[in-house]
């Protein structure tokens, strides 16, 4: 971890809001600059989606004297996931907490990331072993902060408030919230619909209430799902989509946050 400059956790209380999708595209976006070294760590032990989304299904992890080597998508983008350790797509990782913690510790300690500018950690939904372990093992080496993903409806926000609460409890700074699946634009008539209606004001109202930055709102574009299924970067597949523009603006804000809060600084933002 000493060779990693910035560490970002991607969290949500809620499942299925697009954490892995966001983590993957944050990684792609940052890695578009060849001079930026990016690492993506998937600690969702039960549902490791990152290999699929990054087009790395079936890849194997190698061990060397200096530890495990991540799988490289590009020269400057390396990925590690428990998915690479499973021999079949049907293999289930049915582990209790302590074993999951052990694996996360190994990932964080034994992967030879090299010199990395940004380490993005994709997490499973919830507030449990994986999250506690990640924060515990990473905090000694300074975490820049957490990006929290939600969708507009109250059932998601309900869980996200708990997640923000969790961040406060463990003194993890919150970089901000991303509202995913915000609005759907019909490809036929181009009119907008809200598939997941913000019955209580969406992320905007929640962020105002909790005084946390809203980093951006990403519309629901069916191409995102298709790109993920094919293991390709949506940012390059559909460069003009409003969703791509939203992603890029959010990525920029995250970079700005990390730039303003260089490593070794101990002050806590947002707590």
């Amino acid at each position, binding site marked *: 971890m000493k060779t990693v400059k910035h560490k970002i956790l991607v969290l949500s*209380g*809620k*499942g*299925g*809001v697009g954490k*892995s999708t966001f983590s993957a595209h944050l990684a792609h976006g940052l890695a578009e600059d060849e001079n930026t070294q990016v690492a993506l760590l998937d600690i969702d*032990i*039960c*549902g490791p*989606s990152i290999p*699929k*989304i990054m087009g790395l299904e079936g890849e194997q992890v190698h061990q060397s004297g200096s530890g495990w080597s991540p799988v490289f998508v590009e020269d400057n983008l390396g990925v590690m996931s428990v998915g690479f350790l499973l021999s079949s*797509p*049907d*293999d*289930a*990782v*049915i*582990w*209790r*907490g302590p074993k*999951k913690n052990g694996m996360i510790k190994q990932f964080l300690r034994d992967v030879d990331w090299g010199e990395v500018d940004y380490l993005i950690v994709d997490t*499973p*939904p*919830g*507030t*449990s*072993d994986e*999250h*506690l372990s990640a924060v515990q093992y990473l905090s000694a080496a300074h975490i820049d902060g957490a990006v929290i993903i939600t*969708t507009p*409806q*109250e*059932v998601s926000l*309900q*869980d996200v*408030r*708990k*997640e923000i*609460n*969790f961040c406060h*409890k463990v003194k993890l700074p919150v970089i901000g919230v991303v509202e995913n699946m915000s609005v*759907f634009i*019909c*490809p*036929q*008539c181009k*009119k907008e*619909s809200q*598939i*997941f*209606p913000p*019955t*209580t004001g969406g992320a905007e109202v929640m962020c105002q209430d909790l005084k946390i930055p809203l980093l951006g709102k990403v519309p*629901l574009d*069916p191409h995102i*799902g*298709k790109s*993920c*299924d094919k293991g390709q970067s949506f940012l390059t597949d559909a460069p003009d989509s409003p969703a791509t523009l939203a992603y890029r603006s959010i990525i920029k804000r995250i970079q700005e946050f990390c730039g303003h809060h260089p490593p070794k600084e101990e002050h806590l933002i947002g707590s």
Partner: protein
Amino acid sequence: MEAAAAEPGNLAGVRHIILVLSGKGGVGKSTISTELALALRHAGKKVGILDVDLCGPSIPRMLRAQGRAVHQCDSGWVPVFVDQEQSISLMSVGFLLESPDEAVVWRGPKKNALIKQFVSDVAWGQLDYLVVDTPPGTSDEHMATVEALRPYSPLGALVVTTPQVVSVGDVRRELTFCRKTGLQVVGVVENMSGFVCPHCAECTNVFSRGGGEELARLAGVPFLGSVPLDPELTRSLEEGRDFIRDFPNSPAFPALSSIAQKVLSQAPARLS
């Protein structure tokens, strides 16, 4: 009850138990659990819902029961009735939290202990169906739930996915979990199958297509049906309305009723 060695306890009066599972988060397990419970009730059954999602207990809000107090009786905790007729009862960790924003940040062993309590110490009484909503994954909660329910021979598992490959990828692992733990799979439900634009009626496959049927075929289990996206459904569940009664014209309604019928026509109750 045939298993004479085990104490019958609070689950003795429950005729069928259905676990609603998914490997993937956010596919609509809680929504499907709630709708299945409502559909079974409309078919005249007495239903209980057990929400074992300790980190994200969404069901109290869906049934307009948030903030209700949980009482104790001689046999244990009294589940909360969510309707006047007392035909749907609910137990969720949500009822035990002091504030809805309070996070349950527990490691595995503590979660296991609570689930064991939920399963054995809730005085369900006589129920036709107990629908057990689970969190995503294949971990402590799931193992604890299956182990705690095993003496009572659950009817089986209903597995929920969304159409895209990323979901199917996780849900395949859930089916392996079912196989390894000896859980009979009642079938696969594909949720969020398509969205019909309210302005022009064009149907868009927002989350890709085909995954549910493919998954059922791969695993050799029945495909129970596809449920389309319906924002009115989301709105209604967020506001705790009785969806089945209020939205008979929703595109999701025929799908959910058909799924409930298939569940009803499954294997007979374990109690004679």
